[in-house]
C-alpha cells in the first residue's frame, strides 16, 4: 500500500490489543462446589479466547475472518457488535454497526410476519420511520408477501429464515457483521443474498464475514484474516488466507 493510497482510507473498526478471557465453571451446584473444594480440585479455570488481537479494518473493505472452530472468530464479532466487552485493550467502531449474527433471534412466534418485521428491525436499531420506508422492500426481498399476515409459528423454516435475513440485511448500516448464516434458503435466494452483499460492497460499506464456506469468502472478500488460538496468524489478500486455512 502506498502512503498516498492509504490517505484515502479511513478505519471503521479498530481492534487494539484486545484480550478476552472466559471463566469455565467445573462445579455446577453447591454440592459439586463443596466436593471439589474438599478434594482440593479447581472450581474454575480460565480460557483465553483472544490474546492481544490487533486489527484495523478500513471503510469499504470486505474482510473474511477465518480460522478453525474455537479460534475466537465469533468472540471477535461479539466484541465488535457490543454484545461483550473486552477484558483488555479496546474496540472502536465508526458508524452504525449491524450484525447478521443470529437471524431470527428476536422473532416472536405468536406475532404475524408483519409485526415481526417491525419488532426485529427495531431490535436491530431502526427507527419507526426507517422501517416504514423500507417495509415493502424487506417483504419483497423475502418473497413471502402472501404469508406476511400469518403468525410466524406457522412458517416453514425456510420462510422464517428468509424473512429474518431480509430484515437484517435492510438495516441502515455502515458496518455489517456476518456470522455463518449464508446457508440460508434455496439456491435462488442465496443468489439474491450474494447480489445484495455485492451491492453493499459497492456502496462502500464495511463487511466482516465469518465463514467456513471458502467459495463464498473468495467471492465476496478481498482481504482475509486468519485467527488461530486467539492471535492473528495471517492478514493479507484473501487467497493467501484461504490457502493458509486449507493447509
Amino acid at each position, binding site marked *: 500500500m502506498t502512503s498516498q493510497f492509504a490517505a484515502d482510507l479511513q478505519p471503521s473498526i479498530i481492534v487494539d490489543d484486545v484480550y478476552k478471557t472466559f471463566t469455565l465453571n467445573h462445579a455446577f451446584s453447591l454440592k459439586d462446589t463443596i466436593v471439589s473444594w474438599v478434594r482440593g480440585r479447581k472450581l474454575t479455570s480460565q480460557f483465553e479466547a483472544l490474546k492481544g488481537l490487533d486489527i484495523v479494518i478500513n471503510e469499504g473493505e470486505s474482510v473474511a475472518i477465518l480460522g478453525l472452530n474455537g479460534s475466537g472468530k465469533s468472540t471477535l464479532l461479539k466484541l465488535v457488535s457490543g454484545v461483550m466487552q473486552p477484558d483488555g485493550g479496546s474496540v*472502536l467502531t465508526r458508524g452504525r454497526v449491524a450484525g447478521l449474527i443470529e437471524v431470527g433471534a428476536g422473532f416472536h412466534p405468536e406475532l404475524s410476519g408483519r409485526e415481526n418485521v417491525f419488532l426485529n428491525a*427495531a*431490535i436491530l436499531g431502526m427507527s419507526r420511520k426507517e422501517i416504514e420506508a423500507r417495509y415493502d422492500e424487506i417483504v419483497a426481498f423475502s418473497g413471502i408477501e402472501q404469508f406476511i399476515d400469518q403468525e410466524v409459528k406457522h412458517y416453514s423454516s425456510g420462510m422464517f429464515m428468509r424473512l429474518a435475513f431480509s430484515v437484517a440485511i435492510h438495516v441502515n448500516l455502515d458496518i455489517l457483521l456476518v456470522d455463518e448464516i449464508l446457508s440460508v434458503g434455496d439456491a435462488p435466494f442465496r443468489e439474491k443474498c450474494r447480489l445484495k452483499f455485492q451491492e453493499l460492497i459497492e456502496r462502500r460499506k464495511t463487511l466482516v464475514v465469518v465463514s467456513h464456506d471458502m467459495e463464498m469468502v473468495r467471492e465476496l472478500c478481498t482481504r482475509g484474516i486468519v485467527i488461530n488460538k486467539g492471535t492473528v496468524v495471517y492478514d493479507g489478500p484473501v487467497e493467501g488466507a484461504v490457502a493458509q486455512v486449507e493447509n
Partner: protein
Amino acid sequence: MPDQRDLFQRVPRSEFDVPGKAGGLLDVFRWHYLLRLLVRTGVTTRYRNSVLGWTWSYVRPAAQFLVFWIVLGLFLNLERGIPNYAVYLFAGIVVINLFSEGFKNATSSIVGNAPLVRKVYLPRQLFAVSAVIVAFVHFLPQVGLLLLVCLLLGWITNVTIFSILAIFAGAIIVMVFALGLGLLFGAMNVRYRDAENIVELLLLLATWASPVLYSWIMVKDAITELGWPSWLLEVYMLNPITQAVELFHFAFWSPVTETTLRSRRLWRSTRSGRS
C-alpha cells in the same frame, strides 16, 4: 501491516464509538420505539390461544379477593375492625398484584430473552422496563373494577384532588420499586437461577408485610403490646409497598368510608384516652 499503526494515530478517536457502551436508563428513551413494540408484544401475546383471554386478568385477583374476604373478613372477623373491609382489601390486593407481576416478570426478563441478549446488542434494561409497563397495563382493568365498586358506594361525593394524585403516586412508587428490584434480581438470575425462587419467596412475604389484609394500626398496637422496640414500626412503614398500599387506601377506601371513619376515630380517641 506497517501502515496500520500509522492510520491508527491519524484518525481522531472522537469519531469512534465504543460498541456496547451502556447509557443506563437514558437508553430506554433513545430506544423508545422498541420499548413500545416490546410492550405491545407483551400485552397482545399474553393470552393468545386462550378461550377466556383477558378475563384471566380478572379471575385471579377475584379468586384471591374472595378467599381473603371470606377467611379473614368473615371467619376471623377483621370486617368488624375495618369498615368496608371488602374495599380495603381489594385496594391493597390491586397494588400487590401490580408489584408481584412487575417484579416477577422483570426478574425473568433477561433470562427469558437469552437468545437476543447473547446475540444482538441492545440495552438489556429495556426488557425489565417493558415487563413493568406490561404489568401496569394488566393493572388498569383491576383498578377500573375497583373504581366501579367505589363509585357505587358513593366515592365521588368525598373524593378530592389528593385522592386522584394518591392513585398515581402509589402506582409510580410500586412500579419504580418493582423495576429496581427486578433489575437487581434479573441480573443475579443470569448467574444463579436461585434468584427466581428468592423472588417467589419475597412475593409471598410482600402480601403479609404490608397492610393489605389488616390495618397498620394493628401492627402498631401489636408492637406496643409485645414490648418490641418502636423502630420496628418505622421499618415496617418504610416499606415502599406499605406506602403505596396506604396511598391506595387513602384514594379509594377513605372516601367511601368517610363517615364510618369519623366515628371510628372518635372511638379510638376515647380508647387511647382511657389507657
